[in-house]
């Protein structure tokens, strides 16, 4: 026993440097294992990231469809009360926009609907159609609320809206949000599992080394740290690469989509992917850390438990 017993600080610095160098050695000397783990991490993070983007876009699409849902209220006495109703609607929380339709506009639209039979409408003589207000709600589930509100107004004669459609959209939308959560949870669970197993198997391949190090007086922390840092490095690198691939493939996919399906509401902003990348890298750190810690500490415990 000799060395610089006094200078605990220098010693800790030295140990820290050795640990860093050892991490590098673990990564570099077993390049094969490192590459395999890294590629697995990339695949896994890519899957997670892709499913997140998929889920977010599905939600955006549903929201887009929902915003096309209208409630139509026919009013009793001409354009005056039409404007009253429209004003009241505008004040409501769950209403996105309000449009007014005069009897004249309504007639035009009926004619258009009847196509070549529009002549028949001219037979009607004086326009019998009422004025109406078209209300666009923020979410499908609000349609019924708005309809009830309208029907209660004295100015309103009748309310027409596709209750069934609103109902369906509401259900689909809430189902999609639940499904997306489930998909995410499954993906993340599978990702952690796969990474954990991979790291653990790669630690398993170095069981002897761990044992020997402990036998010659290395502390558990000294032995464990390089493995943990290695796990973190691979996790982070995997997440970074996956984010990169995601960034480009998302850009490509979204361009193709916008080109062929311009009517869908999609998230065109690629910054989303950057933010997702940060989350993935955070996940890489966490998973890499936890998995390698669990794996290596299991072997360390097995090696220090005397028989």
């Amino acid at each position: 026993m000799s060395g610089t017993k006094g200078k605990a600080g220098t010693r800790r610095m030295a140990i820290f440097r050795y640990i860093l160098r050892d991490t590098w050695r673990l990564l570099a000397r077993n390049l094969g294992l490192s590459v395999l783990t890294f590629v697995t991490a990339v695949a896994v993070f890519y899957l997670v990231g892709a499913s997140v983007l998929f889920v977010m876009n599905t939600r955006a699409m549903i929201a887009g469809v929902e915003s096309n849902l209208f409630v139509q209220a026919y009013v009793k006495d001409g354009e005056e009360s039409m404007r009253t109703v429209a004003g009241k609607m505008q004040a409501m929380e769950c209403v996105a926009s309000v449009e007014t339709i005069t009897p004249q506009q309504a007639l035009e639209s009926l004619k258009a609907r009847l196509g070549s039979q529009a002549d028949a409408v001219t037979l009607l003589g004086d326009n019998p159609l009422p004025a109406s207000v078209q209300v666009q709600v923020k979410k499908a589930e609000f349609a019924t609320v708005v309809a009830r509100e309208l029907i209660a107004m004295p100015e309103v004669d009748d309310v027409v809206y596709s209750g069934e459609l609103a109902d369906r959209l509401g259900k689909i939308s809430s189902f999609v949000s639940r499904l997306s959560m489930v998909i995410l949870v499954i993906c993340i669970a599978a990702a952690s599992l796969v990474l954990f197993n991979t790291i653990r198997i790669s630690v398993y391949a170095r069981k002897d080394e761990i044992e020997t190090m402990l036998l010659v007086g290395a502390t558990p922390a000294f032995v464990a740290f390089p493995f943990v840092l290695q796990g973190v490095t691979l996790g982070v690198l995997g997440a970074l690469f996956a984010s990169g691939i995601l960034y480009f493939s998302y850009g490509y996919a979204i361009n193709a989509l916008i080109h062929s399906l311009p009517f869908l509401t999609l998230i065109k902003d690629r910054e989303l992917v950057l933010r997702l990348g940060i989350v993935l890298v955070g996940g890489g750190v966490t998973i890499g850390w936890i998995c390698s810690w669990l794996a290596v500490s299991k072997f360390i415990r097995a090696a220090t438990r005397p028989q």
Partner: protein
Amino acid sequence: MEIRISGVTKQFYPDIVALRDVYLTIPQGDFVYLVGPTGSGKTTLMRLITRELVPTKGQITVGDCNLRSLGAIDLAYYRRDIGVVFQDFRLIEGLTVYENISFVQEAIGMPKNLVRERTGEILDRLGLWRRRHLYPEQLSGGEQQRVAIARAMVNCPGILLADEPTGNLDLATAEDIMSILLSINASGTTVLVATHNQYIVDEFRQRVVGIRRGRVVRDERKGRYEADGDL
């Protein structure tokens, strides 16, 4: 640090008793040969001292330290003061000769320049300097054995356990190693050598502890090898 083994029995299965009621005291600074036929329990005794194993019965103390009650960190610190030449070397495959020897110093936080100096010195002393960049699997058996010896010595431990340290060495090299061990012993380190090498034991006369079938059968100052090998 005195090694005090009292009433130690080590049983592996109901039918395999590697050590049986062993009493042995090795004072600080002693040089002891552990001799006995193959399978008699020499390695088991050493593994008990490094706390790789704990006794089934009985008790081992080293200095003030009862080995049974060591925690993981204390164990690491305890082991730093014990150098071990394992019978199967246990070199780390992924490390070069140089690294195998330097990392035990690094593990205790020795500064870089001191590590370099000491490692170079000991590699030179054991004739391994030209092999320093090779990996264990690229070494001859005798070279591996010398690396194992170098690793055990490099931290100047208080106790040095050498399990068959000359099994892969020719006589001349074995004698070199022995004189190194004796000089380490002269500087106050307790040395325990398990060996089958009659030449060595008879040439460098020291205390000899004979084990047979797990029992200590003799304990002589300046003893001889005595090939009394009925298993």
